[in-house]
Each structure stands twice: as structure tokens, then as C-alpha cells.
């Protein structure tokens, strides 16, 4: 079951890359990161959090601050204190971000 879910997530990430949807990529990588973190695999989690963080930044999403916090907590990036207000300046990406089945 876990195996299948990972494959679905990978496929969804690939699809979001093909459609060039940073907001969807932020959400999907964020999900992958949280799963690896919960499983205790910090290196894999931080790889995914890094991807999630960059796409959240690109899309101007406040959730970038959450990803940045996880990375800083694990000593993988510097904390950026101004990220909470990102969406005030940048209207969120209008593209659809929901992936069926995930």
C-alpha cells in the first residue's frame, strides 16, 4: 500500500513538472517531505523540503515559511524571517493545484 502511494506521488510530481505548476509542486514535494520526515529519514525529507521550498517561493506561497522552518530546524538552510507575508505582495498562483487521488 505504501509502495503504491509513493508511486502515485511520484507520478503526480512528474505531471506537475510537465505542466509547470509551482504551487502544485510545492504541495506535492511538501507531502513527500512530511512523509519521509515522519518515517525518520531526515536526508530524504530535507531533499523534498528543499524542492517544496523553492517552488513555494516561486509561487509566492506563505507555506514557503513552513518549509523554510523545517529546513532550518534540520540545519539545512538559513531562516528567512520575512516569508510569512509573501502572499500579501504576491497574489497566489491561479493555476489549479489539486491533484486527483492524492
Amino acid at each position, binding site marked *: 500500500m505504501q509502495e503504491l502511494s509513493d508511486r502515485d506521488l511520484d507520478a503526480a510530481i512528474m505531471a506537475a513538472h510537465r505542466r509547470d505548476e509551482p504551487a502544485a509542486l510545492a504541495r506535492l514535494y511538501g507531502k513527500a517531505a512530511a512523509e519521509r520526515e515522519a518515517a525518520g529519514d531526515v536526508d530524504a*525529507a530535507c531533499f523534498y523540503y528543499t524542492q517544496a521550498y*523553492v517552488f513555494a*517561493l*516561486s509561487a509566492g506561497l506563505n507555506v514557503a515559511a513552513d518549509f523554510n522552518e523545517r529546513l532550518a530546524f534540520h540545519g539545512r538552510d538559513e531562516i*528567512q524571517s520575512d516569508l510569512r507575508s509573501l502572499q500579501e505582495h504576491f497574489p497566489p498562483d491561479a493555476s489549479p493545484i489539486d491533484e486527483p487521488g492524492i
Partner: protein
Amino acid sequence: MTIHTELGSVLRSVAEARGLPNAHYTDPAVFAEERQSVLFANWAGVGFAKDVPETGDAKPVNFLGMPLLLVRDEDGGVNVYQNTCRHRGMILVEEPQKIRGAIRCPYHSWCYTLKGALRTTPHVGGPGRSIHEDIKRDELGLIRIRSYVWQDVVFVNIDGKAPAFEVANQHLLERWKEFDQPLYHGGAGASFTLSLDTNWKLAVENYCESYHLPWVHPGLNSYSRLEDHYNIEERGLYSGQGSLVYRQLKDDAGTVFPDFGALSDKWDTGSEYIAVYPNVLLGVHRDHTFAILLEPVDQTHTIEHVEIYYARPADDLPKGLSDRNTAQWKEVFEEDIFVVEGMQKGRSGIFFDGGKFSPAMDGPTHNFHHWVASQIEAGRSC
């Protein structure tokens, strides 16, 4: 190879001077010298603030081969950066776009803020590690190009060594301080470009003087006679012409454009047309201004970017009138094409000696030659 043209004769008084030698219009080596000494060493126009109206708007500009990026930040400021990633030199932004949260390099995704700071360097210390002791972010922000917005024109000093914009242009800023007020671009219809087979300087030289009006712009001259014009020349600074008989455009009902606020009487029927050296040509009137940015493509090609501005937003202007105003100016500027292209052709004549200025009529043009020659001499002496 650097060709050292002889400029002493250009630096004499208008009565005795010759114009710049042919090589300044035809030779790629001299064009390269002018790129550095004239265009990069001074405050050159590279774009318009109205092209990046909102936070996150980014517009790439290629100025004489130099990739620049215009970015509107969250405080409303216009920033100009070298459009090159600090990592391995990837071009950062290739099409005008809205940046949402970060200027992200498309290669390895180094991310910069709108103010140019390096925000993150993903996986730079290995997978999942975005920090490394040798990657010092505060030393790796985008290279900022000195810039200043005036009359909506984005001016840059690429070599970073010119006096501050307000100092370099103090005299002109003072002269036109009454026009230091909000300008509203006239919208899509108030914008056009002309592509010219000429050296950029010939467009400046023609713009400066009113001597050609009766011959090249007979229509303009029927209501704006030669004797109603005066020369504007400030040695080492700027030059142009003024008119005493500006008449406002009216629609069929007699409606005119709204005036700029609190102008002195001089502007009731006055207008001025000034070349802001090196490459920006401005015109001011009681009810509109325009800016022409000369984009030097190479020694024999120039693109003129023309933008027209009003005292009120485009939607508040009398219907159809701004289109007529655009058409009127376009006609005038198109009438100048054959002379600026013709002077370019004439400079293939190997016996042309730079020409002879009319002390009465060509002062503003000579003033520009004198300034260009001074910049080149300054460049050669350092």
C-alpha cells in the same frame, strides 16, 4: 585595436569646430569605444518604469549587449540588475514576467529576492543541504546597476563612476522642476517604435535643432515658425530647442487634454525639447510630455522607443484625442527618418570632414558633439 580619432577640432567653439569624424558613425571599433566612454560612463536611458507597473513585474532589457533586468520591488521601487546568475552565469529572466516570490534561476534554482538578495541556494552543500560555508549569500546577491527614474525613463550608469543622477542633471532638473509631477502613460496607443538605419547620435543631433523645421516639417512650421523657436544649449550638460507658440490639440467639440498642475505662465504657449545626453530625448508641454529612448543597436542601426504621457490617466482623456496626438507626433518623427538615415549615408563619403556648423542655428547640435568628444577624451585619459 583602438582607433584614436582626432577630436581637437570638435572641441573648438561652434564657429570654428568641425563635427565628429566619420568613424564615429561607421566604425565598429569606435562604436565600442563610445559604448564604454559615452553610454556606459554616463546616465543612459534603458527603459520605462511604466513597463514594470506592479510588484514583481520583471522586464529583461538588452542594452548594447549588456543583459539587464528591470524589477519592481514590494516598496514600489524600480531596480536594475545585471540579468546574470551569480552561480554559473545563466541568464536569469528571458521574457517579461510577473515574479511571484523569488527570481529563480532556471538552471540550479538559486533564488533571489526582488531586492536582489540571494535567498536560497538549494542543494548547494549536497542533496537536501542548502548551505555551505564557502557560499556566502551576502556576497552573492544580484549585481545592482545604479539606476534612477525621471520622467518615467529608467536611467542607468553602468560603469558606476558617474556623479549621482541628481548631480549630473541638476541643471536640467531645476529647469524642468515644474514637470516633476505624476505622469500617466497614454496607454497602448501612446507607444510606438521606429527602426532606423542610422547611428544613434544622428537622431540626437537632428532632434536638438530647429534649423531643419521649415524644410523637413513644413506642416509643423506653418503654425510654428522658425523665429518662434529658441536654442537651448548648456555646455557639457544638455541641449535642444524651445517653442513659444505651442498650441493645444482640440477635438471637434473643442475639448483639450487636461493640464499639468500649477505650471507657470511660460508654459501657456511654451514647449521645450531637450536631449538628455547621451540617448534620451524629452519633450514637455502644458498637457503632455513624451520620451524617446534611443536604443543603439550597432554603429548603423538604432531603435527609437517613443512613449507619450499625460496629466491624467488614459481613461480620463478626451476620447480619441490621444490617438490623434500620437499620430501627429509619429508623423513628425517619421519625417525625420530620411534625414537621419541620409546623414548616415553621407558619412560614407571619405572626404566628409565632420561638416561646418552654423553658429546661429547649429549651436545645440555642436553642443552635443562637444559633449561626446569630451566623454571620449575623458575615457582615453584614464
